[in-house]
């Protein structure tokens, strides 16, 4: 007997995955949620893998991206303009914070966690005060769903899947195929040698952090039509994002993406089969078991 079934009718509901009419939405939703997750984790992964900093304010960078779209929409600007502005706005905040605070934490990762956690609380409570603690919807540039007979596929989630793929590829190209990417990797592997070779590591770190913040801002901007804006918007993603980075392997950018896709897919897929409350827990159990057998992460070979 599957967990969480109360009567025969519910059992029928659970069994309907074999039906193609529900298999397509299942596949789509798993894909869409994984895409959202990858988008959120990208920025976190870049900062964690390139700089060794676990940025606890990442969820709040996502929130700031969402807030940018919301504020601009309040002034009558269409939401797609807000979504383009969001990464730049959050990048500026990221750069400012990096110069003011984060750069002092590089030598002490534990202090960095606490420091970014404090920044997170300050940002979150500031936005809460501005919003009066309430939730507000933000319109998607594309609303509604594609309806194909009985099936309906959310338009905006489709757009998010496409954008995620594009952003993923562009980020990967930036980090592996450009001079900037080379400098970033050099600074990661041997900061002293990188400095000796004429790379300003402090500037590279600032740029990387800014880039990570921009990705978070983009994620927030794109997600806000789905989640509605509220001060705690970024919180549910944070812990699972760290799980994704850990799962993928801290040293590699690709690892974080694989980890994120995996965590996103399991989080979305498990509730189709078992109680959501159990599923939520199981995601962590599965991840911990994997990390037990591959403590270096799934893609440990990465670039280290």
């Amino acid at each position, binding site marked *: 007997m599957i967990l969480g079934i109360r009567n025969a009718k519910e059992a029928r509901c659970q069994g309907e995955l074999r039906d193609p009419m529900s298999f397509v*939405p299942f596949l789509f939703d798993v894909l869409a949620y994984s895409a959202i997750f990858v988008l959120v984790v990208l920025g976190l992964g870049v900062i964690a893998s390139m700089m060794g900093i676990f940025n606890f304010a990442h969820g709040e960078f996502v929130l700031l991206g969402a807030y940018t779209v919301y504020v601009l929409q309040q002034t009558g600007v269409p939401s797609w303009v807000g979504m383009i502005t969001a990464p730049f706005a959050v990048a500026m905040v990221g750069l400012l914070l990096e110069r003011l605070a984060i750069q002092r934490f590089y030598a002490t990762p534990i202090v960095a966690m606490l420091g970014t956690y404090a920044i997170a609380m300050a940002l979150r409570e500031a936005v809460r005060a501005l919003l009066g603690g309430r939730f507000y*919807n933000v319109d998607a540039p594309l609303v509604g769903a594609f309806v194909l007979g009985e099936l309906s596929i959310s338009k905006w989630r489709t757009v998010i899947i496409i954008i995620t793929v594009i952003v993923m590829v562009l980020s990967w190209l930036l980090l592996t195929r450009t001079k900037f990417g080379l400098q970033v990797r050099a600074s990661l592997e041997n900061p002293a040698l990188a400095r000796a070779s004429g790379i300003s590591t402090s500037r590279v770190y600032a740029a990387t952090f800014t880039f990570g913040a921009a990705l978070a801002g983009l994620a927030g901007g794109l997600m806000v039509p789905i989640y509605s804006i509220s001060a*705690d918007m970024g919180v*549910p993603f944070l812990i699972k994002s760290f799980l994704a980075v850990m799962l993928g392997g801290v040293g590699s950018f690709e690892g974080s993406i694989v980890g994120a896709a995996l965590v996103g897919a399991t989080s979305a897929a498990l*509730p189709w089969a078992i109680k959501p409350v159990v599923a939520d827990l199981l995601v962590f159990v599965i991840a911990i078991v994997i990390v037990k057998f591959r403590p270096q992460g799934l893609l440990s070979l990465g670039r280290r």
Partner: protein
Amino acid sequence: MSEEKQDKPLESMERRLFLQRTSLLSGLLALGGGSYLLKPKDGWAAAPIKVGIATDLTGPIGYAGVPNANIAKLVIEEINASGGLIGRPIQLIIEDTATNEQLAVTRVRKLVQRDKVDVVFGGITSSMRNAIKDTIVNRGKTLYIYPQLYEGLECTKYLYCTGPTPAQQCDTFIPWLIKNGGKKFYLPSADYVWPHVLNKYARKVIEKHGGEVIGEEYFPVDHNEYSAVVNKILSSGVNVVFNTTIPPGTPVFFKQLYEAGFQKKGGRLACVYYDENTLNITPANEIEGLASCLDYFKAVNDPFGNALYDKFAKQFGTKNPLAAGSAVTGMWRGLNLWAEAVKKANSVKRDDVAKALETAKLEDGPGGPSEIVPGTQHTAMHMYIAVAKAGKYEIVERSPGLVQPGECV
């Protein structure tokens, strides 16, 4: 990351920093945070009556805590302006419980032990009420009034509930949903005490009126992906979704439900905490037809409610308006019922006030009159069923008189 990136600060420098920081921190601690004292204007001969408000001014429940504190300020100002209570002014002491139960217990202990308040109002969530009630009622020997709609079953002596109970929210609402939606119900819920207990009650009422519960499912409170349950709802021909998930999950759930075409296929969405605050969580078209049942909506359009709404909006703005779902009407009712009882008892002693509260009545209020049902510590009030239409509520049914809370009988 490697240590060579930055040179370590000198030892003496560290010590100086440490001293600077500890002195800053201890200074902050000494000042204390989150406590607000509102003294009545001068010119009173008698010592003030102390009213303590313990509510979540910050944290996720802040949207409700802030207007709760505001309505208390408004009511107390009104009472003081009209000569106070039994010849004494009222002093309001507001403590921020910050949506944090551990912290709340300390703050509430300060209210009852140090400030020695005569009554405590507050708490929004059930977990908060459960955390602070013992400190107030048993150890603090103080009267406690809880303003929010909740799951019922709270029969602690000296604890009075002035918000709606499951009976008040379900007894007429569910038959209405069956008539205006259908017989097949689905109960998607957040996994904490309120939905669990409310669903138990709702299931009984649904089955009593010939409906059936197709599924009852609990999600972690911050769950944000609902495709599985949406698919179950759509594929099993559910007529009514009786929602007790809470934000941040609710907007995602409602959007996924809408995009899957639930309403288009004739489905009815219901949610008993939905008020004016929650209307903006999703675009209006996604909750078109959503039905709620509360003790007050602005759309009730009663003269008393309108006047209070305007006064409240004028004084505190409309960011957190007078709304029933965030316990503001319950707080108004609680404060005024308590004031009536103090007048009648001509005392602020706990037993005297509690005795007088048993028969306390309000002739009018936002949404209509109300009264404590003797021997139950709960409040009978008028209830309204409202349906969301184009981003506003329309009242579709008004209770003919006071609705009984049906608790502790």
